[in-house]
């Protein structure tokens, strides 16, 4: 009898609002400890929260993009527990009536598509950070993050393995970045997830006892933690023991999960409606405006690229899957007509450079203006594709203007066929033995002659013309 895994993810997405969920405090990352904390974030006696409508709008965008039910009236609850980085002794969250109800998202693993249902997505405030390693024998508290808006996205337990979990996480990340509601920066903790894992016998109808692994913030660790946990649970079950319902932590150094607290030790959060906040009501007009301004999502882009711009499906997929890539593509296409050439360069040479340096396209020196110009110069035959590669490399290094690079380096393509013919004739005259061999049937030597002409012209010769002329002269 084989084992079957059931996984559910709770993903915490930090919404990219300027101010916090219930205060005017700044949400920017990396400031000195406790400098982005206002009276409300500190939970001073007498302060009151005011809900940030911008956070609601961002949550609604997510809901609309995942075909979810939007609850136009949603409420806040308090989740009570003591922790030093939780200033009020409770977290304000949406338990009873979240802003986003049931929705779904499509994932793809090995070319197979699967729909993962999303139970709900609710707004809540983040806690601060406890700093255990800075002071000897003491713990520091940094409340900069306290009150930052989070959207907690809860999946149905429909994920079958670690790879699906990663694909689901990536799909969520793609959507939130496309919607511009989160920067997707996992290293800074803008996206984190809790993973619920259980295993059961394939023919069991009931779910097994689950363990929750808290606070994982990289694709790699999600995969490793889940795989470790599946093995651990199967080992326990096969030895005849039972899995304990508990919260576990993933240790990336040892690659193992460790018990944090069991169900018996779990907090009773004593949820109740937050009496400081009235229900938030989203009007029909407000909802319509958000709907009307929803950006185009990867699937829609992919479809449009293929149908309207004649891109190959594989190219369209690559470009549409990344927000920055798509925006570079669309920016360049707006300034040049040859969208297929734009796509070729993006998927080919540019992706290669990006991969080599392991950066995102918006971190490179390439602008859509300069990129469009490069494509134009190829289309109008000012430069050859080969020269274009060196121009691209120059842009990569210096971000100089395409035309300036071409001019200053004298890279304009030689189109003058009589000049090219003279050069080709000289090459032929200087290499009699190769000419004899070619004529004797060594067809492959044709490339040698092209290469020589290119060498003589420092690569500036129009390759089509060179081919044509050489064919004529060598026949």
């Amino acid at each position: 009898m084989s084992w079957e895994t059931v996984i559910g993810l709770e993903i915490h997405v930090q919404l990219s609002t300027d101010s916090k969920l219930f205060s005017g405090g700044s949400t920017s990352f990396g400031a000195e400890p406790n400098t982005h904390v206002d009276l409300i974030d500190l939970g001073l006696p007498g302060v009151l929260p005011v809900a940030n409508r911008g956070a609601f709008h961002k949550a609604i965008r997510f809901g609309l993009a995942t075909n979810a039910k939007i609850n136009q009236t949603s409420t806040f609850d308090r989740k009570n527990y003591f922790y030093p980085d939780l200033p009020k002794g409770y977290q304000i969250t949406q338990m009873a009536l979240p802003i986003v109800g049931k929705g779904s998202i499509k994932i793809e693993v090995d070319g197979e598509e699967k729909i993962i249902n999303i139970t709900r997505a609710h707004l809540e405030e983040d806690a601060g950070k406890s700093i255990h390693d800075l002071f000897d024998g003491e713990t520091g508290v940094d409340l900069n993050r306290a009150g930052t808006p989070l959207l907690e996205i809860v999946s149905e337990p429909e994920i079958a393995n670690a790879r699906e979990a990663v694909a689901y996480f990536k799909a969520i990340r793609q959507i939130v970045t496309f919607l511009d509601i989160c920067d997707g920066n996992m290293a800074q903790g803008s996206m984190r997830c809790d993973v619920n894992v259980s295993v059961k016998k394939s023919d069991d109808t009931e779910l097994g006892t689950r363990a929750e692994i808290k606070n994982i913030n990289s694709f790699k660790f999600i995969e490793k933690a889940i795989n470790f946990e599946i093995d651990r649970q199967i080992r326990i079950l096969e030895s005849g023991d039972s899995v304990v319902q508990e919260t576990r932590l993933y240790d990336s150094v040892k690659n193992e999960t460790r018990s944090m607290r069991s169900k018996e030790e779990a907090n009773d959060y004593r949820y109740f409606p937050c009496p400081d906040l009235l229900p938030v009501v989203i009007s029909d007009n407000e909802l319509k405006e958000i709907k009307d301004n929803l950006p185009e999502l990867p699937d829609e882009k992919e479809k449009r690229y293929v149908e309207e711009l004649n891109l190959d499906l594989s190219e369209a997929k690559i470009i549409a899957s990344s927000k920055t890539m798509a925006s570079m593509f669309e920016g360049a296409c707006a300034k040049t007509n040859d969208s297929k050439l734009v796509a070729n360069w993006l998927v080919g040479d540019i992706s290669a450079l990006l991969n080599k340096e392991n950066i995102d396209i918006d971190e490179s020196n390439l602008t859509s203006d300069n990129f469009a110009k490069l494509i134009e110069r190829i289309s109008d035959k000012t430069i050859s594709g080969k020269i274009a590669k060196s121009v691209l490399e120059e842009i990569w290094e210096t971000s100089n203007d395409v035309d300036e690079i071409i001019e200053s380096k004298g890279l304009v393509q030689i189109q003058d066929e009589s000049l090219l013919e003279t050069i080709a004739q000289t090459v032929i005259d200087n290499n009699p033995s190769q000419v004899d061999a070619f004529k004797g049937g060594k067809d492959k030597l044709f490339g040698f002659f092209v290469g020589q002409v290119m060498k003589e012209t420092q690569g500036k010769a129009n390759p089509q013309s060179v081919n044509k002329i050489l064919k004529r002269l060598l026949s």
Partner: protein
Amino acid sequence: MSIQYKSIAELKTMLNNNEISNAELIKETFSLVKSNAEINAFITLNDEESINKANKLDDCPSSGSLAGIPIAQKDLFCTKDLKTTCGSNMLSNFIPPYSATVVKNLENAGCISIGKTNMDEFAMGSSNETSFYGKVQNPWGKNLVPGGSSGGAAAAVAAGIVPAASGTDTGGSIRQPASLCGVTGIKPTYGRISRWGMIAFASSLDQAGPIARTAEDCATLLNEMCSHDEKDTTSLNEDIPDFTENLNSPINGLKIGIVKEFDLSKLDNEVVKVFEESKKHYESLGAEFIEISLPNISLSVPTYYVVAPAECSSNLSRFDGVKFGKRCESPKNLEELYIKTRSEGFGDEVKRRILIGSYVLSAGFYDAYYKKAQQVRRLIKNDFDSAFKSVDIIMSPTTRGPAFEVGSKGDDPIQMYLEDLFTIPANLAGLPAMSIPNGIIDNKPIGLQLIGNFLDESRLLQAAHNFQISTDWHLKTPTGIKS
């Protein structure tokens, strides 16, 4: 000319006629505070700044409607740079970096906040015996409680030290001490006055209001205290009328409801007699009485003692020794920090309510207690809604009797909780309600409660003012107060 027992209206006249300077008024106020120190009405005095402000007003007069009027602020309102303890050891070192909206509103009108008044710890109590800073004496008798939780506020006004004080009322904390000290107090509609800067006890019930010598002064104060505040989403975005406008309009034909379910036969004869006399007086003013039924009203006290502790247990979680307020000495670990800080910082009554609140919110009990209480609360509100279809205001005694002796209810929390029997329903329903002095029993004052419809404070104040211009109960003063 003495300023003691003067109303705001009288002090304004004295100031306008230059019978007294702003500085003299404030200095005399502090001398009254000092000569009556044994009343223990104040936790913290703001003498230096108050005198500076008064001097400034003498140099450069202000047009504010309350310019130069000394006011005592309940020590539950945050006051910038002035210690705010909420009557608790937990906040014995807490100096807020900001002021409550209601404090700002009063100061913007020219009021001088002369100090912070004593109160039951975190506003939990009906006798002012739970204050960490000692009991407050009722000016009407050394061994009498002033009521609570705004006991210091009511005592300071009753002793004639200040003409007005701010208070808060979660289950009767303005009206009950007003009744026991023989002064006038009003709790407006929930949401009329911003809660920003009020240290929360039970957020859905807490409402600030004034305590003063007359309904007229209460109206003047309310004009300044009420405001829509974007910092408090439960603050009402409704027009704020001039509450003084209709004070003198006669109350012919005013329909007054008497609650059938308030069984007055259980009260002392004297209390009933005082109440009946007030009814007769209102009849003489042209009012008519109609018996109304509030079928669920008997559930008010138990409902309140689920909702209020539940909210308090959560609101008081922030007092953990980590960021502000008291922290215990050298805790061994985090858990001990919490346990010791909270054990030392909170008094028994606060602990009792945190325990009740944590219990009623806990998994498995939430539906049976908190959820059920919220449902009953809705029913009580509906009862009032139907009642106000046939009456303009509702009248009852404010308290079951006059001030009781210190310590007489100390061992029995239930007896103490019943103190608020008549006052709690208005908090649960969010309705405006006030207490005005209407009699004296054994040399102890007692008050009459008027409950109004949603946002109908003006009519309450009008009914109260009509009573006060034709009676003198509000002018009675205790004996033995030092001048």
